[in-house]
């Protein structure tokens, strides 16, 4: 029979296998953090600074929300010390991939009850399992900058858990990031108050959290900024304008000149408000968000 001391040694060795890997890798070099979108990458880089190598493996041309990585990329995620998830149903591939639960951090888990629905679910019935619905949750949580700050706090906690010795530095970095995020929130709130419920449009349904947090009266179309809407889509817009006389339309990217002109003829100003789910061509998440708010302010003040 094996005695208590041996058991303790075994337990400790197990602990070493499980938790020690992270500590060893931390001692050997920076933390390896993988994220599912750019906002989380930006937050993690700001919070962990030089102590982490933060990677977003999604190619720059894809929307990380709908990207499906191959096995080789998933293998990279498996090798990370931390995998930062956005939650709210973002990056559905995570639900179909094998990742170590102990390394996953759902950064929005703390405000699950505040998730917003994306659109009406389609309920369907087939087979013996009965009626079920494919519910959709709005996932661009970072567009509510207060929620973004809570996601950043979750990242801070995860980094400190892995690297307790960095607590002070990480906390300091987090406070600076939080300050920036809350400044954005304040600016967006002021814009919401200024808009006073003015009807607005969104080319795509990604701005739910922005609208909810800052009181924007937004209705979403299903238009792509790099495509020309067809006749049916224009008719849909005109029908919507009768009920919702919007004068501003938010776009995820710069729309085509012809589309901008036709919208202008309908009295609608096009405003680019990039959600920056992936790495921007220029600047970083904060600078793009600041530019988004400046453009919106400009459009509202005209």
């Amino acid at each position, binding site marked *: *029979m*094996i005695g208590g001391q*041996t*058991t*303790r040694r*075994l*337990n*400790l060795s*197990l*602990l070493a*296998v*499980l*938790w020690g*890997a992270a500590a060893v890798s931390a001692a050997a070099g920076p933390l390896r953090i993988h994220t599912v979108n750019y906002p989380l990458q930006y937050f993690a880089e700001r919070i962990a600074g030089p102590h982490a190598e933060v990677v977003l493996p999604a190619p720059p041309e894809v929307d990380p929300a709908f990207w*499906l990585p191959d*096995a080789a990329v*998933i*293998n990279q995620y*498996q090798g990370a010390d931390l995998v930062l998830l956005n939650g709210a149903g973002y990056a*559905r591939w995570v*639900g*179909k*991939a*094998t*990742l*170590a*639960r*102990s390394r996953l951090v759902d950064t929005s888990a703390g405000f699950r009850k505040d998730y917003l629905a994306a659109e*009406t*679910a*389609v*309920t*369907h*019935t*087939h*087979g*013996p*399992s009965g*009626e*079920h*619905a*494919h519910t959709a949750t709005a996932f661009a949580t970072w567009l509510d900058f207060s929620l973004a700050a809570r996601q950043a706090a979750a990242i801070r906690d995860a980094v400190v858990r892995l690297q307790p010795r960095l607590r002070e530095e990480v906390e300091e970095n987090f406070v600076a990031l939080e300050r920036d995020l809350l400044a954005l929130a304040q600016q967006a709130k002021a814009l919401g108050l200024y808009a006073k419920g003015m009807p607005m449009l969104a080319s795509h349904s990604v701005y739910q959290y922005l609208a909810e947090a800052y009181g924007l009266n937004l209705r979403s179309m299903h238009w792509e900024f790099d495509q020309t809407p067809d006749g049916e889509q224009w008719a849909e817009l005109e029908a919507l304008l009768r009920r919702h006389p919007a004068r501003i339309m938010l776009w995820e990217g710069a729309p085509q000149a012809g589309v901008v002109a036709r919208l202008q003829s309908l009295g609608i100003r096009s405003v680019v408000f990039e959600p920056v789910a992936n790495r921007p061509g220029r600047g970083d998440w904060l600078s793009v968000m600041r530019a988004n708010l400046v453009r919106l302010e400009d459009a509202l003040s005209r």
Partner: protein
Amino acid sequence: MRDSLYIAWRYVTHNRARTGTLVACVTLIGFLPLALEVLLDESERQLLSRAESTPLVVGAKGSALDLVMNTLYFDDEIPEPISLRAADEVAATGLALPIPVYARFRARSHPIVGTSLDYFAFRGLRIARGRQLALLGEAVIGAVAAERLGLEPGDHLVSSPETVFDLAGVYPLKMHVVGVLARAHSPDDLAVFVDTKTAWVIQGLGHGHQDVTTTRDPSVILARGDGKVVANAKLVQFTEITPDNIDSFHFHGGAEDYPLSAVIAVPDEVRAGTLLRGRYLEQDTPLQILRPRDVIEGLLENIFRIKQVLDAVIGVVGLATLLAIVLVFALSLRLRQREIDTIFKLGCSRGTIAQLLAAEIVIIVGLSAAICLVLLQIVDAYSGGLVRSLFL
């Protein structure tokens, strides 16, 4: 003495049948209890080493032995399911790392073990060929399972239906074998490992099918409208997860309610383990937390009780055999009376005659001991595999 041994040796080799029978009897009397001892020692070692390396198991209240045997050895007896929430609760305490285990299904008689990547690190399992699990529908198989099933990375393995009479049940899932584990000399060698999500697809909790919102086949759609689509059984449900259809696979309901058979809890220190055990002391919790070592020690105590009975039976049989051997010798002395008289008349003393007979016994017992030793060496060499295949 050498002369006596020589004459005795000539005698026993001349009467081969008699000698063979006697040697076999004596060998069996010695070999049986000793071999049983070796096998039981090995069983104890294996059972305890697996139990010792698994600090705590959380599962549904009920048979502790079923829970531990299913979690550690993927035994056929499946404990009452618990939900993934149990793993989340362990994680939320911050006292231990939870590793989900869902060992319910089988593929060609090998257990399918739904778990997370943490399990492989926890057991020190290494991929020998192929790669680690990455996507839904993939499987990594143990070394022995791979050998027996003749599978290599790139092959497929179909899950077995739980019952052939479940005609309305879920379709078997064709899994992609992506890796083969290095031999671990443990029950993991016999298992087929999948992600817990794949195990839930096997159970039918997750599935993939044609897009009911876009299909226009009137023979599939019974009713459509008002955000609701009713399809009939003709709706194609996928039985294999491929890059083309993986996006259509989905789960219904909250993942926290999905079933597991157990959660292995790995505390970060002994004190944390004690504190965690304290959390499950309330009477109203449907969960129990066990130290597999305690359960296995209880099992071993029962095994040793059975062994004592077996030892007694073997003892009685051995005594009876010994008496029979004595009888054989006594009878053979009678049969050899003329031969003994001749030896006596040739001038041998009674002591020499006794020496001759004693030398025969020494040779028979010596031969038996040698054979017994060789057999025990063989049993000892293969005891690990024997115990795994016979008992575990």
